[in-house]
């Protein structure tokens, strides 16, 4: 009997110690493995560079507690599926896929690795272990519109868009709202580059805008090419995704900076605490996290190359958006054909923003397609 009891006790002791070992090694032992997939290289000085800066913030914050793997230049197709799967196989516990075109590949791999967490940036499809995160880029565009309206002498604004998708169109419309708030005579012309990143095409589009008399330029593409052309031709413009003043010290009025770092840190922290989630609810379009100026995911760089009174107006717009006093898409909204979108007293909700396929007043032409 005594023998039996000692056996039982030793067995219990053994299992407890094993359990303890497992738990302690799981929590204190190996670092959390984090994977990133980049569309281009950080050398684009735009979109991917902004993600690289976010990754650096993550490394700085967690130090030895995490191990980061990065794959750059991953095309949005079968290669993406393979790379994401490989990252999951190598034991990465959370994987950030940082371009819209990784949506299906991310979902496909996520199905095969239910224990790995996936963070798809700018997408709209989620699943149990796929969360989505995005930035309210359009808030920065409103401030750009305010500054452009006060700085332009020709009342012609040149805008370079990547593709006529909702995200870009809502940016143009937000710009138009900012413009209209300070200058009723100015209007926006849009050139579609049909690419996110092609410095040559972006530069060509900028040249066309300047030749047609535009003196303030804005872009929804990735490279600093537009600002470089503006700098050479005495025009002004806004930096995109990262601070581009190094490329155009005299031309950059300010830059809308994508600040992914805090989002990454938050999600990795959640994972480490076992609290990671997709924040999903029904009919909840733009991802659980769609942060803007208020949540610091969109940061406005220093106002420069403009008179103090313009900088002050810009600051007011910035503060207004931050405090919620300015609702960029509050009615009455009228599109540029004269049709009423929403009456006074109401405002567009997030879902309506993602359905935008029209220009508001102040924009020339019509949305292609």
């Amino acid at each position, binding site marked *: 009997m005594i023998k039996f009891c000692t056996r039982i006790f030793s067995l219990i002791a053994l299992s407890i110690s094993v359990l303890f070992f497992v738990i302690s090694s799981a929590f204190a032992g190996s670092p959390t493995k984090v994977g990133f997939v980049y569309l281009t290289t950080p050398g684009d000085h735009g979109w991917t560079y902004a993600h690289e800066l976010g990754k650096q913030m993550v490394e700085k914050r967690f130090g030895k507690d995490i191990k980061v793997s990065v794959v750059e230049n991953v095309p949005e197709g079968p290669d993406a599926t393979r790379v994401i799967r490989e990252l999951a196989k190598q034991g990465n516990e959370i994987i950030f896929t940082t371009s819209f075109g990784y949506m299906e590949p991310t979902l496909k791999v996520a199905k095969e690795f239910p224990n790995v967490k996936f963070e798809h940036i700018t997408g709209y499809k989620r699943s149990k272990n796929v969360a989505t995160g995005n930035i309210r880029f359009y808030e920065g565009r409103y401030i750009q519109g305010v500054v452009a309206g006060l700085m332009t002498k020709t009342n012609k604004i040149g805008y370079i868009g990547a593709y006529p*998708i909702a995200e870009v169109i809502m940016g143009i419309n937000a710009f138009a709202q900012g413009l209209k708030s300070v200058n009723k005579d100015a209007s926006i012309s849009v050139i579609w580059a049909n690419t996110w990143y092609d410095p040559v095409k972006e530069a060509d589009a900028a040249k066309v805008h300047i030749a047609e008399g535009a003196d303030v330029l804005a872009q929804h593409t990735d490279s600093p090419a537009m600002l470089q052309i503006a700098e050479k031709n005495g025009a002004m413009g806004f930096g995109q995704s990262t601070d581009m003043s190094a490329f155009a010290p005299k031309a950059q009025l300010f830059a809308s900076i994508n600040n992914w770092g805090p989002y990454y840190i938050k999600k990795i922290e959640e994972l480490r605490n076992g609290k990671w989630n997709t924040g999903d609810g029904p009919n909840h379009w733009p991802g659980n996290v769609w942060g803007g100026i208020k949540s610091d995911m969109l940061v406005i760089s220093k106002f420069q190359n403009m008179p103090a009174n313009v900088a002050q107006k810009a600051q007011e717009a910035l503060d207004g958006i931050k405090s919620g006093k300015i609702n960029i898409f509050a009615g009455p909204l009228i599109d540029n054909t004269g049709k009423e979108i929403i009456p006074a007293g109401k405002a567009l909700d997030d879902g309506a923003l993602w359905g935008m396929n029209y220009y508001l007043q102040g924009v020339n032409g019509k949305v292609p397609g």
Partner: protein
Amino acid sequence: MITFIPRDKVSKNWIIIAPILSIVFTIFFGLLIFTFLGYNPLETLYQIFVSPFSRIDRISDILVKACPLIIIGTGLMLCFKSNVWNIGAEGQFIMGALLAGFIALSFPNIETKFFLLITISAGFVGGALWAFIPAILKTKLNVNEILVSLMLVYVAMLFIDFIVRGPLRDPMSFGFPLSKPYPEGALINKIPFPGIGFLGQLHYGILFVFLLVPVAWIFVNKTLGGFKINVLGSAPQAAKFAGFKRNSIIITVLLLSGGLAGVAGVIEVSANIGQLQPEVSFGYGFTAIIVAFLGRLSPVGILFAGIIIATVKLGADNAQMTMGIPKVVTGLFEGILLFFLLTGETLQKYKIKWSEGK
């Protein structure tokens, strides 16, 4: 002046020594570059050449990546053997995928896999039609096929871009340029292995490669058609005397290579993407040109060349994931590898003569 003079006889020994020397040189320069840049040189070489074979599912990834390269390369082989320079396989790939995609999306509820026979045939037709343009221009108007086939690549890229933004755009895609997903009947499934499950993305499309390589080998080595192609390429005058119809050979090889590129496009999209998007090819049509030459314009050689290129590409990704080596560095290494392999082959066949040229 440097001139290349064909050797009278290619030495048997050099056929073996040349590739070995090429690889020795590549490894030497690779070690040099990696050491100089501060990466562990042996580990880098391990990641690039060995790690892609280190797991069974990684080997399957190589096959998936090599699949379109081998199919397109085999088609291009027929062209290059007969001295027809089809540089536009990329465009033919896209048009094949597009025509097949159009048919697939026209039958949204079809489930039977026999439908794949139709979409793959459509892919062949799409690619062949796109290659028919340079073929007809060359044979009727003597227009240079290099230029025409290359320029048509850009037309094809813009065309598919237009189609997925306009007519075939999924209304539920929030304005993003994507088509609806293909119906079940138009999808190529992954191969399930008993006890293991799926191996990465390994799909039934691979079977086409194993069918194509022997058929191409028999065609090139054992049939009159293959003989005609060879003669037209290596001795056009002899082909003329023998009464071979030059124009019909040119049209045939272009149609075949375009068609095969189109089939590669269908397999790639049906197995790996499952819908149309603005970009469906990622330079496969251009990389396959290297594959064709690296494989010395023979079907078996192309099979191995496709696997080598795919291996190095995957190895480069692994090197980046585990060691943080940027793609530009591994790309440089790829360049060195191809340079030495092709130089080795050229020097095997030609002598170099240096002369005080005028």
